[in-house]
């Protein structure tokens, strides 16, 4: 009895952790290329959720048919964020300024500010209200997996995490644009000398990363059913923590760390009240950093 309870807590934690992981994938991809934190990523996630809502309510589409709309929205958001919050700070092609501290700090704040603007704009459109995905469109059908009860939404989150992770690894390791993304993230100056169009690669990164973010918003909203304009705020912080624990540049690392955070929260809830578990991710973060100052899964050579 007690054991199944503990297992249940950990399983719930892992499922929550997967939502962090899902958001962390796109977030980490963007960080990897520019060494810049895109705080507006949370708003892309929220936009993905709203796009899903519009698709299933206004357009009366089945949940799966929302995918193209969500991809278009994510793409547009990604390109927009790059153009507005990041491009203006890459004015100089000199290596000193491309990934310099000043640029990193400026884009950290500009993306944060753009995030506020985006969030408040969505707030105006949807009146800051909590909105619901209609029940018949939600992925909440119970699924019996060898005695373990899961919801379709959880399976969708886990499945999408896996698909995105594998898809992204395929893109990075097997395609030309993936190679260019890795080249730019490895050595920006070298990439210029190799004839790689930096702007194109950065745009591609934002496009891919933001599509992933919007898809994450879609699946999570279909699984949990509640949407509000500030929903991306906490998630992006958790994704950030997952990225750092995972070693900053490792996408599988971020996914593992995201799940780890969820499981740690689940484990902590065995001992302390839920209200205290808010700090679990951060305690985990600080302890990780004290013992592994560069994260758990640092890529070789980086």
């Amino acid at each position, binding site marked *: 009895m007690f054991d199944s309870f503990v297992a249940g807590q950990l399983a719930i934690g892992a499922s929550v952790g997967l939502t962090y992981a899902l958001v962390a994938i796109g977030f980490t991809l963007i960080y990897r290329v520019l*060494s810049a*934190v895109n705080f507006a990523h949370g708003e892309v996630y929220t936009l993905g959720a709203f796009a899903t809502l519009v698709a299933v309510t206004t357009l009366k589409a089945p949940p799966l048919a929302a995918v193209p709309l969500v991809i278009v929205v994510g793409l547009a958001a990604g390109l927009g964020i790059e153009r507005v*919050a990041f491009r*203006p*700070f890459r*004015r*100089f*092609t*000199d290596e000193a300024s491309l990934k310099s*501290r*000043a640029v*990193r*700090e*400026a884009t950290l*704040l*500009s993306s*944060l*500010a*753009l*995030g*506020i*603007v985006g*969030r*408040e*704009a969505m*707030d*105006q459109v949807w009146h*800051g209200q909590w909105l619901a995905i209609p029940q018949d469109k939600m992925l909440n059908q119970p699924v019996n997996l060898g005695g373990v009860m899961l919801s379709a939404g959880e399976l969708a989150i886990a499945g999408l995490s896996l698909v995105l992770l594998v898809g992204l690894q395929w893109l990075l390791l097997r395609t030309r644009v993936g190679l260019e993304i890795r080249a730019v993230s490895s050595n920006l100056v070298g990439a210029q000398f190799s004839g790689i169009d930096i702007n194109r690669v950065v745009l591609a990164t934002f496009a891919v990363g933001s599509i992933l973010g919007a898809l994450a918003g879609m699946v999570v909203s279909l699984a949990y059913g509640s949407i509000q304009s500030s929903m991306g705020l906490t998630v992006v*912080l958790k994704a*950030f*923590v997952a990225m*750092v624990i995972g070693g*900053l540049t490792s996408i599988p690392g971020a996914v593992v760390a995201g799940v780890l955070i969820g499981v740690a929260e689940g484990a902590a809830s065995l001992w302390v*009240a839920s*209200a*205290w578990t*808010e*700090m679990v*991710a*951060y*305690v985990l*973060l*600080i302890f990780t*950093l*004290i013992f592994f*100052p*560069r*994260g758990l899964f640092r890529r070789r050579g980086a």
Partner: protein
Amino acid sequence: MNRPLPLGWLLAAVILVVVPAALWLFGSAYAARLAQLVLITALLAAALNLLIGTAGLLSLDTVVYYGFGAYLTAILSTNYGTTLPTEILAAAAAGALLGGLIGWPLVRLASIFFAVATMGLATIFHTTVLNWVDLTRGPMGYRGIPAFKLGEFTIDGWAGNYYVIAVVVLGGVWIVHRLTHSYYGNAMRAAREDEDCARAMGLSPHALKLQAYAVHASLMSVAGALYAHANNFLSPDNFVLLESGLTLTAVVVGGLGSLPGAFIGALVVVLVPELLRPLGNLRAFGFGMILFLSILFLPRGLWSEVSSLAFVRRHLFREGWLKR
């Protein structure tokens, strides 16, 4: 950097004479309240500036030490009837101690790792004050914090409050100024630019950063002590991550590494949201826009605007290495 000594006196004169005179003439407690908040925020920004501008550590833990000093003072003055000098000393010492303890492992972390770790501290602090009800009275907030007491005298009324805050804040900013314009400041900058080189010069980057971190914690803690009395009320909501972000915004908007900039930045982050009140539910949108545009067009902050113009001219036009 030219020594801004006359500027310092000018600033002190404005804060100690011009602003109170204006407040007295127009007799507005609302303006006085905002002036107090500007000064407290300026001390926070100056302390953060010490960490970012000199030691090169981007930190989001303002609320930790600010809140620590505030709650410490609230508890001391409510339960033990302490007076101002005791409280300032207690906040400074306890802040430095806490900063030293937390900073010891943290300042070793490189750039973004440090920033995220401090972000974590802020959340841990907020969760603690929210849930440790016995100590902090939790979400109901700490009400009924008495006014400033100096020996036998109780200082109330806006003028007294204002002067207490102004004097302490100027003192704190002066300390930051002395530290950054000394051998010590140069050593810290050296450690920021090149740790190996600094080590070769016989400096210990870890010790230097740790000292900067402890000093910044101590100053923020003092700012918190002032805030507790000025507000008479503390709530965990005053110490959420977002408030750390506001201090960082003050530093960035005012200009990194610039002390007058700390005052200007504080002015902006306190006054702009107030001035935007008529926007109603577009207020946060407006603040985001202003923040965004100021980062875009004033990459070096407001106070360094003169040098930033030179920078732009140099880099964008004459030099001609602007790509597009």
